[in-house]
């Protein structure tokens, strides 16, 4: 049992910190600090900076552009990036569809799609959920009917994050309506410019345009865009879920937001002192800090298990549930710290009227109610743990 990272690991950590300090554009850092969403240009700009450095896809195989890092180095990288306030990369291309393509795709598909994903030349979105298929994803009904060299796709995908920016979408579609529900699903790559694809904004409660409904009306998709065998799409999708095991806790981000909370609450005047020193508030901040540390060390234990060759189990469910709850607590505390300065509605890209951190404090609290719902709700995660951990 040893709490220390090795000398090499520490040097690596310092290298990441120095890189972000030097290369993260000030405007992007400012937006992240104020809880403002990034524009498409911001996101692509930063990703291209990472691409230049060779750090854009640490989890990819080295021969395809990955870094060849150990699980510990991957952990340090995610943690430090989060702690330094670097925006997380848009996951749909780099972290979701690319691993599926390089694991299950043909050589032609790898050559066709992977370089553009790596270089952030092409923006991807995810077509999984449907209005009638949320937690019960396997019940999805977007239909793909074979017609010669094409599939004809009809249906609606819900909650397509940032589809308004997307060039391509990867979809789970039903190719065999007669099979048991998981067995009749295929994995299709669809060009958003294909006739019949339309994007309909869905405004979320904080007023932002983050998600959409994507409609497919007689959309013709070449069979060559199917990844993996027909009716094997669920296997591809499940594979995706086993990826990104430890970073789902977002510990680096949690620590960063905690630091931000301390900083801002240390500036909020209360009487002759500051909010951070008020006993009740200070107590709540300390409690969150302890829990974040517990989550961090849970991540590290899982990490060391994986590093020693252990197979990941249901631990990602634990990390997801607790990590998202703590994310929400931090947004709650920041909103309380903002007090009356949080009242004014400040839209995406809008200017703060008073303290900058307060401008989007309510919006972020509202927006983060989603984190215990998306990516497998807390209820689903607990069902998984009931089976996998409790053996019930």
């Amino acid at each position: 049992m040893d709490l220390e990272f090795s000398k090499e690991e520490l040097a690596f950590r310092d290298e990441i910190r120095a890189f972000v300090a030097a290369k993260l554009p000030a405007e992007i850092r400012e937006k992240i600090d104020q809880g403002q969403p990034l524009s498409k240009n911001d996101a692509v700009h930063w990703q291209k900076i990472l691409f230049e450095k060779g750090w854009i896809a640490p989890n990819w195989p080295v021969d395809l552009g990955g870094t060849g890092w150990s699980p510990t180095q991957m952990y340090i990288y995610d943690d430090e990036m989060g702690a330094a306030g670097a925006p997380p990369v848009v996951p749909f291309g780099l972290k979701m569809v690319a691993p599926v393509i390089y694991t299950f795709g043909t050589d032609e598909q790898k050559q066709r799609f992977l370089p553009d994903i790596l270089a952030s030349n092409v923006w991807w979105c995810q077509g999984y959920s449907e209005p009638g298929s949320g937690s019960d994803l396997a019940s999805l009904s977007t239909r793909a009917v074979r017609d010669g060299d094409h599939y004809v796709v009809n249906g609606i995908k819900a909650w397509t994050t940032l589809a308004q920016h997307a060039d391509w979408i990867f979809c789970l579609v039903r190719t065999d309506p007669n099979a048991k529900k998981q067995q009749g699903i295929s994995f299709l790559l669809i060009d958003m410019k294909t006739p019949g694809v339309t994007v309909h904004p869905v405004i979320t409660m904080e007023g932002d345009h983050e998600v959409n409904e994507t409609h497919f009306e007689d959309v013709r998709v070449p069979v060559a865009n199917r990844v993996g065998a027909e009716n094997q799409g669920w296997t591809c999708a499940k594979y995706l879920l086993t990826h990104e095991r430890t970073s789902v806790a977002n510990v680096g981000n949690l620590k960063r937001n905690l630091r931000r909370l301390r900083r801002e609450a240390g500036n909020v005047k209360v009487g002759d002192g500051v909010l951070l020193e008020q006993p009740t508030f200070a107590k709540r901040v300390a409690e969150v800090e302890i829990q974040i540390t517990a989550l961090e060390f849970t991540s590290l234990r899982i990490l060391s298990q994986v590093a020693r060759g252990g197979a990941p189990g249901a631990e990602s469910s634990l990390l997801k549930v607790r990590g998202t709850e703590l994310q929400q607590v931090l947004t709650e505390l920041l909103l309380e710290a903002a007090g009356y300065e949080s009242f004014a509605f400040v839209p995406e890209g809008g200017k703060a009227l008073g303290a900058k951190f307060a401008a989007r404090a309510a919006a972020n609290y509202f927006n983060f109610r989603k984190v215990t719902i998306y990516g497998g709700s807390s209820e689903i995660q607990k069902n998984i743990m009931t089976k996998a951990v409790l053996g019930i």
Partner: protein
Amino acid sequence: MDFTFNDEQNLLRDSVRKFIEKDYAFESRRQLLKTDLGFSRETWKGFADLGWTALPFSEADGGLGGSAVDTMIVLEEFGRGLVVEPYLPTVVFAGGLLRRASAGLRGKYLPGLINGDLIAAVAYAEPESRFDLSRVSTTAKKDGDGYVLTGKKLAVVAGHAADLLIVSARTSGAVNDRSGITLFAVDAKSAGIERVTYATVDGLRGANLTFTNVKVGADQIVGDAERGLELLESVVDEVLVALGAEATGIMEVMYKSTVAYTKERKQFGVAIASFQVLQHRMVDMFMEYEQFKSLTYMATMAQASARPLAKHAAGLKWLLGRSGRVVAQSAIQNHGGMGMTEELAISHYFKRLTMLDLMLGNGDYHLERYRTLQA
């Protein structure tokens, strides 16, 4: 001990409820939010015509001589309907202060307020004061027979449309002295008032105000000079009780509509209401709502019978933060993704209930008050 309502009160509740069911559909509220004013003057006049703006004022002042119970009934229904018209700031808050003002001020402002012509707002929050009503940097310096006001006020609900502003300003003492604060009734059209107006995150409208040498006559002082804090605090306690009533109405709708939604929404071949985790969560919502409602009733009855209110109001406000959080967060979680949308009403109830916690002091602030107050 009697928890029943009399015929008049039941009639009042029915008329407010009917008005909202008939004329206050969620869609029309959504359209209102897009306007600059953020509410409907016509609807406001309708409230006046129905006598609701007259409720808390004495008959001598042209009112109906109603009690805290009547205010509670109206606000609870307004919470259920998520009404955006400025009843709280105008009738309950400013009205509560005016009720205790001189005959001159009452005669000057109450007729207009009661007949729906006058909107009023109270400007008390300041950038460096957080929730402390006694921390006042806005100054009122003697100027001939009157005063000049200089300072900044934050988060003035209905400050964008108010004709009358009641402003707390310091006539003497250090910035956090309890004495030396005076309340002034200020014509919103006075020279020297700069307004930054905005939509608020919970569907209302507000303003930040900057006063620069705003002239106010000595006859515009509300209550006693130098002792405005006592008056302000006692009326704020009444506003807290009214907020409790609004929150009660919101919680009722949130828990019931969550039950209705989960009965309709199917996943895995069954209504999600059949999952025990969601059932228990909704039962928790119900229990929080019922307890909170009970405490609102208690505080309302204490106010109606002129018992000391401060500790009850503080306790109620603390519970609003806690119960509000449970009910609001549970509602969204049980709605799943749909609960996140702007389209569904549930998220609007969520936002209003969330922000009520910060209004006039959050749970932590009032818990500390409760702890230090004598019964």
